[in-house]
């Protein structure tokens, strides 16, 4: 199944793209995302642990594993600095 991945700020600069499509095994959870992303965009490792993920515009807690379905939207969210 395919999920849409958005990159922002430093993660966008490291990935060299603002979005990508990930093909995952059906039944995959959000735990599968970073291993796949690091494979496709090795520079993302420079983020270290300084990021969180969102799933369909809701933040995921670090370590939280949610089931994924086709068409889901995920974002890589470096430390925010709005305002």
């Amino acid at each position: 199944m395919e999920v849409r991945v958005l990159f922002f700020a430093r993660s966008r600069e490291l990935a060299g793209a603002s979005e990508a499509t990930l093909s995952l095994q059906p039944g995959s959870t959000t735990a599968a995302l970073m291993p796949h992303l690091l494979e496709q965009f090795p520079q993302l490792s420079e983020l270290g642990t300084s990021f969180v993920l969102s799933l369909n515009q809701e933040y995921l807690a670090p370590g939280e594993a949610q089931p994924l379905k086709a068409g889901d939207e995920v974002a890589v969210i470096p430390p925010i600095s709005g305002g």
Partner: protein
Amino acid sequence: MAADRAVLREGRCYAEVTPDPLHLQRLVELVVDDGAGAFATFTGTTRNTFQGKKTERLEYEAYVPMAAKKLLELCQQACARWQLCGAAIAHRTGVVHVGEASVVIACSSPHRRDALEACHWAIDELKATVPIWKKEFFEGGEVWKENEE
């Protein structure tokens, strides 16, 4: 192509993410109410210095639909927690030069304490929860800022 702006409205709440210049008066007009005796606003602007160096500009990037959603939720939480007539927040994206506004918040209420407290809470909460990023361009470099919250 992803949308570069969003406006969400619900009841007494208004949330906007936009690349256009922000205007305080417009946000205030969104919370006008004859039942209000108090209006409190906050405007964040680009300062001319960053850690002792001259700031050339700031550039803001937003996860637009999620940022708009989080800004609306912020307004709704403020309305639930304080007695407000209205709450409106607008955040700008793209280049924000020195002296220009990056964020404007306006709250109105019957009595002053609610608008004043809600406005202060809202900017603190925005900095902690809304997916927007600021890059500082200063003499000699550029860096992605990280809020302390």
